C-alpha cells in the first residue's frame, strides 16, 4: 500500500534547510518553534502511520512509499523507497519521540548559546537522516541516512568548535565511523554480487527461502552470507561503538549534552543494532557471523563496564555505559533474539536519554563541570532531576519492575537459551551469557557509584550557593523519560510473568524479525532471580564503597591494587595503543607520500620541471631580442631573400600526365611555364641515371623493349635562376 511516509523524514529535513538558510535572522523563539514543530509533526505522522495504518498491514510487510527511481545502471536499480514495517515503525516512533523531547529540552539547555539556530538546524538534520536510515527500504537509502547521521554526529560533537579538543573529538568520531562504513559498503557490494538486488525485503525473502546464492561458499570455506554479515557488522561496530571501533564515543561527549542524549545514547548509536535486526534473516544463515556479533557484543559490554568503573566524568561514565549497553543489544541480536535486542534498544532509549538529560541538568546547575568528584549532595537541591535519575538508575541496574530489568533479562536469558549457533558453536551461548552477567554486575556498580557520588553526602561543588533546579522545558522531558524508563518494560514482559500474550514487543516484531525466542518458564524465573541478586549486589557493593562520598573501603581498595586501578582509570591504554598501531604509521605514511609524491614528484618535477623548461627556452630566445631595430630588419631582409629564392624555383607542374600506350610511356607535364619556353627538361625513362630526352619541350615519349617496373625521373631546370626540381614516378610496363 502506498502512503505518505516520505513526509516523516522530509519534515525535519525541511526544517533543517530552512534554519540553515535563514535561521540566523529569526528570534530564538521562532527558531525553536520551527525546529520542534518539524520534529513534532514527524512524530504525529509516524504515530498516525504506526497506530492506524500499520496494524492492518503488518503481516503483509507494512507500508511502503516509493518516491521514484533514484538511479539505475545495468542490473542495479535503486528506488528512493521507504518502508514502515513492524521493526522500522517501532524504531521510527522511538526516534521521533525521543527527538521531539530532546528538542524541547534543548530549548532550555541551549537558551544562552549564541549559535542557537545552527544547533537546531543540525538537530533537525539529524532527525531527518535518522528517519531515512530507519525507513530506507534498500541498503543504499539506508546508507544515505547512515552517512547523514554520521555527518550530524560530527557537526554536533564539534558544535563548540572554538576549542580544539571538541573539533578533534568530532574528527575522531567521523574518521572512526568512516572506517566502519567501508565495512558496510563492502557488505553491500557482496550482497549485490551474490543476490543481484539491494532491496531489503527481496534480500530477506531470498534468505528466508534458504538462499542458495547466499549460502554459496565465497572465501575460506565460509558462505557469502557470513562475509556480508561480517562486513556489515564491522560497519555496525563503527556506528554503534563496539570493539574495536568504540573509541570515538567517549570523546563524543565533547558535544552539548542533549546531543549526547539524542545521538550518542538513544538513536544513532543504535543504528548498528537496528541494521543487524533488519537483516536478521540473513544473519541466521551464518551462525559463525552471529557468534562473532554476540562475542564482540559481550566482550564490549564487559570491557566498557570495567572502564566505566574508573572514570570520574559524569558524561564519560554514561558514554562507557552506553557502549556497554550496546554490547548487550548486540548479544541480543547476535543470539538470534532480535526482539530482545530491539526491546533493550527501546527501553535503553528512555533510561539512557533520561540519564544524559539528568547529567545535562546537573551540569547546567553546576555551571558546566562534569567532574563527579566535585559534586555530591545534589539530591536536595535538584529534586526533579534526582527522582528521574533514581528511576533511570534503577532501570539500567536491572532492578525488578523497572524497564531495564525486563529487557536485560530477555537478552541474558536468551543468550543462555538460544540454539542458533548449532552444535559446533554451542559453547558461545553460555560464554556470552556469563559475560553479560559479569557486565550486569559492573553496570550496577558503576551506575550506583555515579549516583552516590553525585547525589548523596556532602556537596563538594564550588558553586553550591547558586544551585538551582532546571527550567520547566528541561524538567518536562526529564519526567517523560523517567516515566518511560519506569514503564517501558511493560511492553515486553516475559511469558513466565505475564502469560503468553504479555510479550507485546516480541509478538509485534514477529512479522519483521521472526518469532520471539522461546525460554522455558522455570529457566526464566531462575534468570530473573539471578539478575536481581546481581543488580542488588552491585548496588550494595557501591553503597559500601561510595555511599555518601568515597568511603574507607574504596580508599583501601585503591591502596591495595594501585596498578589495576591506574590501568582501568586510563581506559586500558586503548587510545594510546591505537595511536601507536594505527595513527602514527598512517601519519608516517602520509608524511612520506606528501614528501615523495607531493613535494618531489608534483611540486619539483612536474610543476618545477615545466617552469624550468619554459624558463630555459626563454633565456635562449632572449638572446635574439637585442632591441636593435636594424638588426631585426637585417634578419627580415635575409628571410625575405630566402623566401624569394624558394618561391622563385620553378613551380611544380600544374598537371603531370603519364600515359602508357602498349610498351610506350607518354609524359605530358602541361606546365604553364612551359609556354614561356625558358625552362629546360630532362627525362630519364629507364632509371639508369642518364637522361634519355632533354630540351625545352615539356612532353616526351619513350618505348620500352622489355616489360617490367621502371623508375621515371623528370628534371625541370630554370637556367635564369639556376634552380631545379625533380619529379619521380614508378611505372609498370606489361
Amino acid at each position, binding site marked *: 500500500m502506498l502512503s505518505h511516509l516520505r513526509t516523516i523524514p522530509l519534515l525535519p529535513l525541511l526544517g533543517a534547510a530552512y534554519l540553515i538558510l535563514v535561521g540566523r535572522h529569526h528570534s530564538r523563539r521562532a527558531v525553536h518553534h520551527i525546529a520542534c514543530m518539524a520534529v513534532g509533526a514527524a512524530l504525529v505522522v509516524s504515530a498516525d502511520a504506526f497506530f492506524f495504518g500499520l496494524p492492518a498491514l503488518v503481516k503483509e510487510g507494512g507500508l511502503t512509499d516509493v518516491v521514484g527511481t533514484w538511479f539505475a545502471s545495468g542490473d542495479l536499480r535503486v528506488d528512493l523507497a521507504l518502508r514502515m514495517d513492524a521493526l522500522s515503525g517501532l524504531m521510527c516512533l522511538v526516534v521521533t519521540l525521543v527527538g521531539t523531547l530532546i528538542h524541547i529540552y534543548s530549548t532550555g539547555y541551549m537558551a544562552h548559546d549564541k549559535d542557537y539556530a545552527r544547533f537546531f538546524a543540525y538537530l533537525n538534520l539529524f532527525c531527518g537522516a535518522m528517519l531515512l536510515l530507519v525507513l530506507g527500504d534498500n541498503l543504499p537509502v539506508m546508507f544515505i541516512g547512515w552517512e547523514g547521521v554520521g555527518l550530524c554526529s560530527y557537526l554536533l560533537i564539534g558544535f563548540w568548535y572554538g576549542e580544539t579538543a571538541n573539533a578533534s573529538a568530532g574528527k575522531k568520531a567521523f574518521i572512526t565511523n568512516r572506517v566502519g562504513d567501508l565495512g558496510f559498503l563492502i557488505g553491500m557490494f557482496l550482497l549485490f554480487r551474490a543476490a543481484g538486488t539491494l532491496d531489503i525485503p527481496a534480500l530477506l525473502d531470498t534468505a528466508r527461502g534458504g538462499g542458495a546464492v547466499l549460502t554459496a561458499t565465497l572465501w575460506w570455506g565460509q558462505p557469502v552470507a557470513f562475509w556480508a554479515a561480517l562486513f556489515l557488522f564491522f560497519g555496525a561496530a563503527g556506528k554503534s561503538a563496539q570493539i574495536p571501533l568504540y573509541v570515538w564515543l567517549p570523546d563524543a561527549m565533547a558535544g552539548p549534552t542533549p546531543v549526547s542524549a539524542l545521538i550518542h545514547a538513544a538513536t544513532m548509536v543504535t543504528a548498528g543494532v537496528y541494521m543487524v535486526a533488519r537483516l536478521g534473516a540473513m544473519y541466521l544463515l551464518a551462525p559463525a557471523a552471529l557468534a562473532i556479533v554476540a562475542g564482540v557484543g559481550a566482550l564490549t559490554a564487559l570491557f566498557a563496564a570495567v572502564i566505566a568503573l574508573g572514570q570520574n566524568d559524569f558524561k564519560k561514565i554514561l558514554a562507557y555505559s552506553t557502549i556497554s549497553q550496546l554490547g548487550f543489544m548486540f548479544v541480543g541480536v547476535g543470539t538470534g533474539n532480535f526482539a530482545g535486542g530491539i526491546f533493550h534498544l527501546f527501553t535503553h532509549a528512555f533510561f539512557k536519554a533520561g540519564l544524559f538529560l539528568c547529567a545535562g541538568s546537573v551540569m547546567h546547575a553546576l555551571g558546566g563541570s562534569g567532574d563527579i568528584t566535585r559534586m555530591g549532595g545534589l539530591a536536595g537541591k535538584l529534586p526533579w532531576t534526582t527522582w528521574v535519575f533514581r528511576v533511570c538508575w534503577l532501570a539500567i541496574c536491572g532492578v525488578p519492575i523497572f524497564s531495564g530489568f525486563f529487557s536485560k533479562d530477555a537478552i541474558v536469558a536468551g543468550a543462555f537459551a538460544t540454539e542458533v549457533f548449532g552444535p559446533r558453536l554451542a559453547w558461545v551461548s553460555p560464554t556470552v551469557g556469563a559475560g553479560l552477567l559479569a557486565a550486569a554486575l559492573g553496570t550496577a556498580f558503576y551506575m550506583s557509584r555515579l549516583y552516590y557520588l553525585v547525589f548523596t553526602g556532602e556537596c563538594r561543588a564550588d558553586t553550591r550557593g547558586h544551585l538551582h533546579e532546571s527550567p520547566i522545558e528541561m524538567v518536562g522531558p526529564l519526567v517523560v523519560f523517567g516515566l518511560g524508563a519506569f514503564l517501558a518494560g511493560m511492553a515486553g514482559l516475559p511469558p513466565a510473568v505475564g502469560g503468553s500474550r504479555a510479550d507485546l514487543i516480541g509478538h509485534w516484531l514477529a512479522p519483521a524479525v521472526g518469532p520471539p525466542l522461546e525460554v522455558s518458564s522455570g529457566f526464566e524465573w531462575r534468570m530473573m532471580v539471578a539478575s536481581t541478586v546481581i543488580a542488588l549486589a552491585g548496588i550494595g557493593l557501591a553503597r559500601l564503597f561510595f555511599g555518601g562520598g568515597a568511603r574507607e573501603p574504596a580508599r583501601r581498595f585503591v591502596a591495595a591494587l594501585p596498578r589495576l586501578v591506574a590501568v582501568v582509570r586510563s581506559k586500558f591504554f586503548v587510545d594510546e595503543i591505537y595511536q601507536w598501531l594505527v595513527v602514527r604509521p598512517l601519519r608516517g605514511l602520509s608524511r612520506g607520500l606528501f614528501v615523495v609524491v607531493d613535494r618531489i614528484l608534483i611540486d619539483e618535477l612536474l610543476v618545477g620541471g615545466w617552469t624550468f623548461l619554459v624558463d630555459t627556452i626563454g633565456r635562449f630566445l632572449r638572446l635574439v631580442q637585442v632591441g636593435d631595430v636594424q638588426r631585426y*630588419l637585417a634578419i627580415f631582409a635575409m628571410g625575405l631573400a630566402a623566401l624569394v629564392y624558394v618561391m622563385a624555383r620553378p613551380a611544380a607542374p600544374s598537371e603531370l600526365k603519364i600515359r602508357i600506350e602498349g610498351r610506350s610511356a607518354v609524359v605530358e607535364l602541361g606546365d604553364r611555364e612551359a609556354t614561356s619556353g625558358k625552362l629546360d627538361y630532362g627525362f630519364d625513362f629507364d632509371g639508369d641515371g642518364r637522361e634519355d630526352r632533354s630540351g625545352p619541350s615539356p612532353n616526351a615519349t619513350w618505348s620500352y623493349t622489355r616489360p617490367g617496373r621502371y623508375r621515371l625521373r623528370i628534371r625541370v631546370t630554370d637556367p635564369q635562376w639556376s634552380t631545379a626540381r625533380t619529379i619521380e614516378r614508378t611505372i609498370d610496363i606489361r
Partner: protein
Amino acid sequence: MPTYAYILVSLALFFVGTAGVLLRRNALIVLMSVELQLAAGTLALLAFSRALGDQKGHVFAFFVMALAAAEAAVGLAIVVSVFRTRRTANLDDVNALKG
C-alpha cells in the same frame, strides 16, 4: 629604353635604401633610406606598368606616394618625440625593448 634598364635602376636604388636602413645609425638617415626604398618600388611599378601597357601600376604609384608622405610625417614625429625625451636620434640608444 628597355624595361630591364628601369628595373636595374630600381634594384640599385632599393639596395642603396636597404643598406642605408640597415647600416646607418641616425634615425633621420634611416627614414630617408626608407623613402629611397619606396621610390625604388614606385619606379619598378611604373616600369612594368609601361611595359605591360597596364594603368594599374600608375595608380599604385600614386598610392605609394601618399603612403610615403604619411610615413614620413609619422616617422619624423616619432623621431622628434624620441629626440625630445632622450636628446638623441641614434638608433643604438633607443633599445628600451631589449630582452
